[in-house]
């Protein structure tokens, strides 16, 4: 289709690969799709602070503690950029948090799994952040300007997270028998949920149609998942970890790995709220949000007081 034939300035911009900015006219469905996607992304960053925060006070060295704290601090920062990006679409952070608490907004399923040993902190950095980067690099080209720009900043930090996670795993694989066992156990528990992070197979993905048309989404779930598997398998072998998939095999024709079937039943169960930590994560978030209410009220009252004085 030629640009001139497109009806609206919105469509013309999308076609010309120009970014849509907050003041531009946009279809309501586009706006709502973005609010849903960006807020889900923001909530994921924030809820993700819980499983990692679970190990801050038990980190095994001062260096490891500092790296983990810095990483969680980054995740909080990502949450902030993303809430701000969502706010440009005409919704407040408080409303977004309310949607989360009411179960209307989701966060990444992966954070409904528990961090049981220190190796899980390595697995989250390496596999979970590794999967997130694959997704987020693709999102740098997303059509909404503030979201795209947030992705550029976030990707730089995520690649540092992925390296530190891999370093934890590599160190443990060079360590004692117990450390190796912990690392392999973490690999076994996090591998499949990490693959599920890319969402259902393309044939079953309910939101993809419009997202592609509007160039919010640039690559399909299966394409991204394949990319993640291909880059991760080698990394696992190098440090002596086994991928817990007996059907994983190099496919010469497609120049990528074939993998065994993903347990979509488990995926659906976790989405439906029956993962090991769904309830715990939400209760934690609600509890501390409520505990902080008096502080937010005080800050607001003080602001009012100062503005009256001036």
């Amino acid at each position: 289709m030629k640009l001139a034939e497109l009806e609206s300035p919105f469509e013309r911009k999308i076609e010309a690969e120009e970014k849509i900015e907050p003041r531009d006219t946009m279809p309501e469905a586009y706006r709502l799709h973005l609010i849903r996607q960006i807020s889900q992304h923001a909530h994921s960053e924030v809820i993700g602070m819980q499983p990692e925060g679970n190990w801050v006070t038990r980190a095994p060295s001062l260096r490891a503690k500092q790296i983990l704290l810095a990483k969680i601090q980054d995740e909080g920062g990502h949450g902030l950029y993303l809430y701000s990006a969502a706010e440009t679409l005409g919704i407040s952070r408080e409303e977004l948090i309310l949607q989360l608490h009411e179960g209307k907004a989701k966060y990444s399923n992966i954070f409904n799994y528990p961090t049981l040993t220190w190796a899980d902190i390595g697995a989250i950095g390496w596999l979970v952040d590794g999967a997130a980067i694959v997704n987020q690099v693709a999102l740098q080209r997303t059509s909404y300007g503030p979201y795209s720009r947030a992705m550029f900043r976030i990707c730089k930090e995520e690649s540092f997270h992925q390296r530190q996670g891999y370093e934890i795993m590599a160190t443990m694989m060079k360590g004692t028998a117990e450390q190796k066992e912990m690392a392999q156990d973490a690999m076994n528990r996090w591998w499949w949920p990490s693959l599920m992070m890319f969402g259902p197979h393309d044939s079953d993905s309910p939101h993809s149609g419009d997202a592609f048309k509007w160039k919010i989404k640039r690559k399909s779930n299966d394409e991204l998942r394949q990319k993640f598997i291909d880059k991760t398998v080698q990394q696992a072998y190098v440090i002596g970890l086994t991928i817990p998939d007996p059907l994983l095999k190099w496919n010469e024709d497609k120049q990528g790995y074939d993998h065994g079937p993903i347990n979509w039943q488990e995926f659906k169960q976790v989405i439906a709220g029956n993962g090991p930590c769904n309830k715990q994560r939400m209760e934690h978030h609600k509890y501390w949000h409520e505990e902080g209410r008096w502080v937010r009220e005080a800050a607001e009252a003080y602001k009012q007081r100062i503005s009256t004085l001036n």
Partner: protein
Amino acid sequence: MEKNEALKKFLLRLGDNALIQGHRLSEWCSRGPMLEEDIALSNLALDNIGRAQAFLDYAGHFYSNPQSADDLAFKRSERQYYNFLMAELPVGHFGYTIAKQLYISAYEELLFEALTQSTDDTIAAIAHKAVKEARYHFSHAADWCVRLGLGTAESHDKLGSAMSDLWAYTQEFFEMTDGDLQLLQLGIAPDQNQIKKVWTDKVNKVFMRAGYVMPGECHQYSGSQQGVHTEYLGHLLCEMQYLQRSHPQAAW
């Protein structure tokens, strides 16, 4: 007391204060009243852990069999820790943490300012970095004291009770052992009495800005200079040292 022994203990106190305070602050992770504060408190924790590493690393040189910062952090027991009692008290509500931060960071700003002039070059170098952090920690705490003090009736009361409860742990900051007096003579450590005067004035100004009256004289807890702590420290160390203690052969 031999000079090196005095210096070792002085450094352990500096390192332990930072480590235990950093540990408590890190407990705020994912629990802040707003995302911005979650990030800010983690950042304060991070500064403290970094400072702990620097001081403990240096302290390790004064052992007959040199110890790493990690050895000192993860393999000493309760009675070998010298941090202020205030640092180890439970994290409490946000106002309680802010009150702790106010007292400690006001002290640390003055302490590190003085230590930048230390005749010990390593201490002076660490203090140069630490004083910048402490300044920012103090202004973070003081700003929150004013917001909470002048915010709502609830916030005023919560911060007010925290500040008076914690007052009983403040005078311990300024205690000087014989070893400290020896270090003072050598120009390594500062005169805590001088710091106390300025600290009292500095903290009082925040009390006034935030609409409070500074507490008068009251019973003061003490003991950490002798490694005698509250019951809270043991539990904190159990948690912090668990991996190092259960896998003594492992490197992380």
